[in-house]
């Protein structure tokens, strides 16, 4: 492992480096030529909200009014801030199914609320009973990333069970579905807002990062008016409206959104399969999720993630500590390389993990 080492294979990125389609760029530039350099309506361009409402109904099974129940935002982080700041107060508890993103916990703490993280189930999956066990009289909301930060997606029964818990205990559900487009072929994304009885208590959050518009900072949230009104007011006080040029790009993407995301999904399918196969051949204990940009590798008891990350880097593979996605004792591998390089990375990682253990012979 010296002379033959090719340049660093980087599987440590937090996000996929996805670029916007040419037609979307043209739509944005054409809008600039038409003078789209002014404020828009605070809630967002009407044509964009209409397209979003249509998609929510057709794809997600969520019926909303485009004029009253859709809010265009500066991306998922702003959506999440609006929801948490408006719907959760000091002293409230927010239940977060684990693994939980550290930034989500930081946001909950920043509004004076307490995050209760439910233990994940087997293989970092969702465990509704662990969520139920955390319900207290202070529990106000459930922050559900679906797909989860490590790409797990609840099945229909688990989602209905979660929905029932929310209804019985009066929880508001803040559902972040921005990785919806990264669900593997053959797996099914379901929106909790479409589960019976959940419509009136759910905020559904999504964005356009999967079509290469992450840096454009544009996303949306949908909710019925009781939940929407305070979020809408806060949006206006905070950022007035979302960037006009980005909204026009998003509107340009809507017409062919499913085609663009299908291309991303197909590419990720190939990468996921390549990495999973190579990790298995290398004898690495991995969880290959049904969605998302990562594959998670389980560390043996007592093995420090930081040390493995450093040794992997020395061996030409950059990976991240699973703590970045709330998973201590795990490594996070991002599917941001092509299949051949992912396979090569798996081989190198296998040698690192199978090689001398910490404290062993050096």
């Amino acid at each position: 492992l010296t002379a033959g080492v090719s340049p660093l294979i980087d599987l440590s990125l937090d996000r996929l480096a996805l670029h916007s389609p040419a037609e979307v760029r043209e739509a944005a530039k054409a809008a600039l030529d038409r003078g789209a350099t002014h404020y828009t309506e605070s809630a967002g361009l009407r044509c964009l909200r209409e397209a979003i409402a249509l998609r929510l109904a057709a794809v997600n099974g969520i019926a909303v009014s485009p004029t009253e129940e859709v809010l265009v935002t500066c991306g998922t982080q702003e959506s999440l801030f609006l929801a948490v700041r408006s719907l959760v107060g000091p002293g409230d508890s927010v239940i977060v199914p684990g693994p939980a993103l550290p930034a989500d916990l930081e946001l909950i703490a920043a509004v004076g609320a307490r995050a209760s993280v439910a233990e994940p189930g087997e293989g970092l999956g969702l465990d509704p009973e662990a969520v139920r066990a955390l319900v207290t009289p202070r529990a106000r909301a459930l922050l559900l990333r679906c797909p989860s930060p490590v790409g797990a997606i609840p099945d229909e029964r688990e989602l209905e069970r979660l929905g029932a818990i929310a209804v019985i205990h009066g929880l508001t559900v803040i559902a972040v579905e921005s990785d919806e487009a990264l669900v593997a072929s053959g797996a099914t994304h379901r929106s909790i807002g479409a589960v019976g009885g959940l419509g009136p208590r759910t905020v559904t959050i999504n964005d356009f990062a999967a079509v290469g518009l992450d840096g454009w900072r544009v996303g949306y949230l949908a909710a019925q008016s009781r939940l929407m009104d305070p979020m809408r007011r806060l949006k206006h006080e905070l950022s007035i409206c979302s960037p006009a040029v980005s909204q026009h790009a998003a509107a340009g993407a809507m017409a062919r959104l499913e085609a663009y995301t299908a291309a991303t999904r197909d590419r990720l399918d190939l990468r996921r399969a390549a990495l999973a196969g190579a990790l298995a051949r290398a004898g690495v204990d991995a969880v290959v999720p049904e969605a998302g940009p990562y594959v998670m590798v389980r560390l043996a008891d007592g093995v420090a993630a930081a040390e493995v990350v450093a040794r992997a880097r020395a061996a030409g593979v950059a990976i991240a500590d699973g703590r970045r996605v709330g998973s201590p004792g795990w490594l996070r591998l991002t599917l941001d390389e092509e299949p051949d390089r992912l396979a090569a990375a798996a081989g190198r990682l296998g040698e690192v993990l199978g090689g001398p253990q910490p404290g062993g012979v050096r």
Partner: protein
Amino acid sequence: MSGGRDAVVAELRERAEGIDDLIALDLGDPDLPTADHVVAAAKRAIDSGAADLAGDPAGLDVLRSAVAAKLRRENGVPACSENVVISTGGQEGLFLAIHAILGPGDEVLAPDPRYPSYDAAISMAGGTIVDVPTREQDAFDLDPDAVERRITSRTRALLLVSPSNPTAGTISPAHVRRLAEIARRHDLLVVSDEIYEKLLYDEAEHLSIASLPGMADRTITVNGFSKTYRMTGWRVGWVAGPVAIMREVARLKRLVSDSAPLVSQYAGLAALEGPQDDVAGCLAQYARRRRIVLDSLDRLGFGYGTPRGGFHVFLNATASGMSAEDLSRKLLAEAHLLILPGAGLRPQWSEHMRLAWLAPEATITEAMDRLERCLSAGAGATG
């Protein structure tokens, strides 16, 4: 944030919607487009793919450096890129600055009248606002003595807005110097909103308080591209201040909305580093429109605090014999003019209206003709 304020604005806007020949002088959104070279830079960022990938929540390094250089060069404020965080517009910048420094029970001295978003940000941060009145006869300058009289043991910060929205008043350099001295003496932080700094009329001068001795360590300056460079729709601005506070601003930025849009950050960079002559050209147009508006108000006998900055006038409607709210309704119904009453900002400003001259000169002339005709017809009828 009052329902009353929202209600009157909403009512007027709703009534205005169906009017074909409406002239709207209500919004703070420049009618002139963003400069061509700025739009061209944005298009280059789009074509290169640089706009696609989200970056550092605190903003692009090149833009933070360019803002720091601008602060040193134009404002005399010592700054490097670590002192700057790029925000998603000036209003978010203000929200971040306020939340970075205020704790529950802290008092903020704030000039009155002011744009209501300051109140929203301060109350959300758990702070308390203490009004410092500014007066029409002083052209809404801020009186340092009036500030100092209101300082208590709980006063944490002083908010300065110069030029001001909605009053268009500026704080004279002499007053800025005295305010700095007061801030130092009472160990106060200063939040200085300077978004209209380049839009000045007559002999008005802008002095950044952070440039004064000992003030860079206690001042957070909020600014943006929207007003100077006619970039309201791009949502990009900045916050600048001491490194320790800016670390908290950057943390909050990451939690509130992550990075500002990249396409807009590249556009902002081009605005800062490109030719500045169109800013002067635009200001010359505003100055002509302002003259038309003020001459007309003089003929009508309307009072106002002489607008020294910005692109609006806070006029006193008392001479019409009506409340500003009633006059707004009358002007909309009879003259098809949309001008918001001060009560739309805060209830106690029931005599005032904010008129923004953000329409071509011919339209402004037409608007003022309509205003004068409408009021003289009213005067004739009542005898």
